[in-house]
């Protein structure tokens, strides 16, 4: 039956396996989706597809028109509308039957259809959380986690009432770099993978239409990136031009781009200088038990480090540092020598850590970014600072590979 060709194409496209363990497509109960109420673009797309599968093309067209009334610049919607109209006068073979269409734009829209529907059908698994969100500091109200492969941005709330457990709030379709993720060099048109945070909010008036309703730069390259020799700059979360509802999954020069309405919804939850933005190739989900275990182990490690510092025994303290440790141009050896000297003059040391956050890095290395307010006092020095440490898995245990002021 010729008319079902479109449906078959979409079904095949969307049958791509879910990498989310236990993702049954059922959203966690109690969650709210600011972009996916019944009138969101993806539920509407899914309903349109369902009508096409049942060969109710008239209904499908009506719903597509409703979709376009709501999102007039939704190019994928227009493509489906074109197909549904064309299906009335000739057989259609696939999604997007425009004669002489530029193939790259067509495949962009097909990919968008696939990832959007996949994103709709494979919501984050209930009782699982992104591995990266080990602990948010109390004043971080939300955290952003991006899955570049799925073209999805997840917003989590810091549920302080539940011990700082991340609670899913919403997810959005996003665009990332033309040439994918794992940015290394300026101009490589890739999106960085790592643990970042929002550093500022740029006024849309100064930016021009291209960035849509807002822009939120993040701190790429971070300490770890620089250590790895990564460069480039100007990685932002931003919106879309006024004539564009959404851009293809891979279209930016490295930024993470959201539909303006989604960006607006997201922006209400972003705290400049505070909100973590963790960008991954593919989100790893942990059951709450596993998540709790990992968090507790790291928490304990941090406390050991703190109390070993207080012990004034430099060797106990220094065992927490990786052989590859470096800070401010110091090697581990130089750092150790200095610590030994300093500790000799100390009669007592007290260290307090507050506002801890711990985010696991989504990159290849087993790395956790720990940030806290450190209150150091001793018989001859008092110091308060915000410190950031990178802990790495080395010889079966967690060690500090970098630390510095945050």
């Amino acid at each position, binding site marked *: 039956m010729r008319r079902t060709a479109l449906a078959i194409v979409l079904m095949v496209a969307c049958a791509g396996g879910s990498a989310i363990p236990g993702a049954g497509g059922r959203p966690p109960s109690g969650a709210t989706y600011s972009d996916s109420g019944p009138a969101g673009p993806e539920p509407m797309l899914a309903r349109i597809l369902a009508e096409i599968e049942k060969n109710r093309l008239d209904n499908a067209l009506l719903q597509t028109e409703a979709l376009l009334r709501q999102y007039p610049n939704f190019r994928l919607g227009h493509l489906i509308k074109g197909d549904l109209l064309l299906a009335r*006068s000739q057989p259609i073979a696939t999604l997007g039957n425009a004669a002489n269409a530029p193939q790259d734009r067509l495949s962009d829209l097909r990919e968008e259809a696939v990832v959007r529907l996949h994103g709709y059908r494979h919501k984050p698994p209930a009782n699982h959380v992104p591995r990266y969100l080990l602990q948010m500091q109390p004043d971080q109200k939300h955290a952003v986690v991006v899955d570049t492969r799925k073209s999805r941005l997840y917003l989590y709330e810091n549920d302080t009432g539940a011990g700082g457990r991340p609670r899913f709030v919403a997810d959005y379709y996003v665009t990332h770099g033309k040439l994918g993720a794992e940015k290394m060099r300026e101009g490589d048109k890739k999106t960085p993978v790592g643990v970042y945070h929002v550093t500022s909010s740029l006024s849309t008036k100064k930016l021009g239409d291209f960035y849509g309703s807002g822009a939120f730069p993040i701190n790429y390259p971070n300490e770890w990136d620089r250590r790895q020799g990564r460069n480039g700059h100007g990685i932002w979360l931003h919106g879309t031009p006024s004539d564009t509802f959404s851009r293809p999954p891979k279209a930016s020069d490295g930024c993470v781009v959201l539909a303006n309405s989604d960006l607006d919804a997201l922006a209400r939850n972003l705290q400049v200088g505070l909100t973590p933005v963790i960008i991954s190739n593919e989100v790893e989900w942990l059951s709450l038990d596993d998540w709790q275990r990992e968090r507790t182990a790291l928490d304990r490690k941090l406390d050991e480090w703190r109390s070993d510092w207080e012990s004034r025994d430099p060797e106990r303290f220094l065992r927490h540092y990786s052989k590859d440790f470096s800070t401010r141009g110091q090697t581990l050896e130089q750092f150790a020598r200095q610590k030994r000297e300093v500790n000799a003059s100390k009669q007592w040391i007290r260290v307090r850590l507050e506002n801890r956050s711990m985010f696991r890095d989504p990159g290849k290395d087993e790395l956790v970014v720990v940030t806290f307010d450190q209150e150091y006092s001793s018989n001859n020095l008092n110091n308060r600072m915000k410190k950031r440490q990178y802990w790495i898995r080395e010889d079966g245990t967690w060690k500090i590979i970098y630390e510095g002021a945050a």
Partner: protein
Amino acid sequence: MRPRLPTPLLAGLPARLPSLLSGLLLGLSLGLSAPFAHADNLPEIQRLMKQGQMPQALEKTEAYLASRPKDAQGRFMKGLIFTEMGRPADAIAIFTKLTEDYPELPEPYNNLAVLYAQQKQYDKARTALEMAIRTHPSYAIAHENLGDVYAKLASQAYDKALQLDSANTGAQSKLSLIRELISTSAPKAPARPAAAARPATETVRPATPAAEPAKPASTPPAPAAATVATVTPPARPAEKPLEPARVDKPAEKAPEKAAEQKPADQNAEADIVKAVQGWAAAWSRKDVKAYLAYYAPAFQTPNGQARKAWENERAQRIDKPGKLQVGVEDIKVSLDGDKATVKFRQHYSSASLKSSTGKTLVLIRSGGKWMIQQERVG
């Protein structure tokens, strides 16, 4: 609901020519005679139009309408004249009003759509054509036009999807304007030069009026019933429907089914089925002579057309290049003496069109031979 159009019309559809004016559809689709009863001046207007004398044609039409301002035929002509004069806004106003006054007429909707499409208002064109088809589900010209409009709309949607600008490359609309309402009283319109290549092809949809016996309320007075066929109600046990019989052995099944019937009726039913199948077969092999021979001298031509004119038209339609296949299925015969009402599914298939419609033939027995007295869709 309006009946479907008989397939002969569909078979006779022209290939659409690029010219806006080429798609003549001549004839009035309604079973209404009253609003068109005084069409005496219309041939003259048509002649003037044909000669391109639009101001004169307009003048005549105004005069014609002066005494009967509601007349659909005259207003329709006026809309056509405005169209030809390049006054689309006036033409649109006229056709729009016609759709309001005569919502059951498909032609004004179709022509509105043509005008909208010319202005690239494809959404409006689509709505109008969908209305035309709502009133006449098998209205082939409207279907073809709608196909074009859908393609245009699809192309616009693709442009938006892919950020193209194909407006400059877009071909001129090829939608077919319908040139005349089909009227019981309308004389057969002379073919325009542009249409000469396929003369009067879409002229009349035979039997359409007959097929719509009950459309009174919203329309002007019904015609004098000349074309309204009464379907003989099944009244006797003998009139059990037959199984569809095969052409080669039509009588085999009948005796079993009709075992209790009188032998004469059994034979009659078999003969009738044979006649219907023979009629379809003659049509399929484009044997015009044999095909026409199935029609009784008393055949009620559509719209009361002259027999000869009707025969010519049928001949022109049937004798076209390309394969043609007419099949019948689910034949049900209701017999009443020398009169039989036969209902069946007619599967029509030509190079350009496939359709499947219900059809009713009323046959009368004359000289031992069953011949068609009425033909209608539904």
